[in-house]
């Protein structure tokens, strides 16, 4: 039991790192410019020169979802978020989905 919990924990941390990296790549910003200040989605849209609107941002998040499936075998759904949502909540929604899937919910 404890082994399986620790395996999931490692996976979740790997997922967290991967998702953060892929989001940063997709919006063409350094991870440090996004995650420590915990930018909102509007904040990311304003800071990124690559993105023009919320559909572009949705596609950037989709790249992270795809990377999770491709590299870690974790299937995530991209939920609807309002633009004042901090990026940490988006990442946490991915982690929560992965945790729920791992525990068979």
């Amino acid at each position, binding site marked *: 039991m404890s082994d399986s919990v620790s395996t999931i924990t490692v996976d979740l941390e790997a997922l967290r790192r991967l998702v953060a990296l892929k989001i940063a790549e997709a919006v063409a910003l350094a991870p440090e410019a996004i995650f420590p200040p915990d930018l909102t989605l509007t904040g990311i849209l304003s800071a990124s020169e690559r993105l023009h609107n919320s559909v572009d941002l949705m596609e950037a998040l989709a*790249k992270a979802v795809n990377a999770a499936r491709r590299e870690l075998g974790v299937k995530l759904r991209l*939920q609807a978020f309002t633009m*004042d949502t901090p990026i940490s909540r988006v990442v946490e929604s991915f982690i929560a989905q992965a945790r729920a899937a791992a525990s068979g919910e």
Partner: protein
Amino acid sequence: MSVINDEAGTVDPTVEPSRDGLMDVIWEQQRFHEHRRWSAVEFLGAVDTRSLGENDRTYVWNFGRAELTTKPGADRLARLSDSECRKWVGKDDVLASVLQACGTWSRYWNEEEAHHESVLTHLSRMLSCEPIRDDVVIRYREIFGDDDMLRTLFLLAISEINATVFYTSMASKVKDEGLRARALVDSGKYSPRSVLAVAHLFVRPGGELYGSARDRVEDRRHINWWDHLEFKGAERPDDHDRQRKLIFAFVEDVTSIAVNSAEEVEDRWLEMVG
């Protein structure tokens, strides 16, 4: 072949003009537009306002206000079509012509929508509903920011689908834009991914389809009419199943990609995002 009789300088009705090029498409647009012409003044003259109940008043007021946003939609389409057209001149002249036809269509669309807006807003006044103030009109007229052409077309088309489901008596509106969206995908220059992205934006859980019924509505600069419907005591005339089915059918019309659920829309879109 000329339709002008050189000697007399008059039109010979037996001679058919050639059927190619933009002028032919524009003539067909004109014919279609004239064929569906109707009078807002006559329509309102035939309405018996005494037969309308409180719910009807709420619907009329809401959708009159919502129709105010179709003018900025058509204006945006006119501007974007022309700038996209110029992008393709000399590189893909057929596509440039399709885009110019699309921009030309905006004038007929604008006029048809003027009829819808006028009927509903004037009826709302006849029924002594809450007045739509000038500052509201000005806010609702704000033109959206520019986006990818195919995304724009598909979003406008879904907006029409939603409106049509809300008031099926105006059901003829739906087909207008889809034909042109298909031409953009067929050109190979616009990715069907844009269609799937916008469809996902609407049908995902908590998506645009659910409009003002959502817990949280996005605070935007421009107005998406579906976010601002206020039904108060009246029953919401939503039919999400029907709206979803129409959107799925429309995705297939434009992209030839069959989808039957919100999850399938998301999956096909994610595959294209890569």
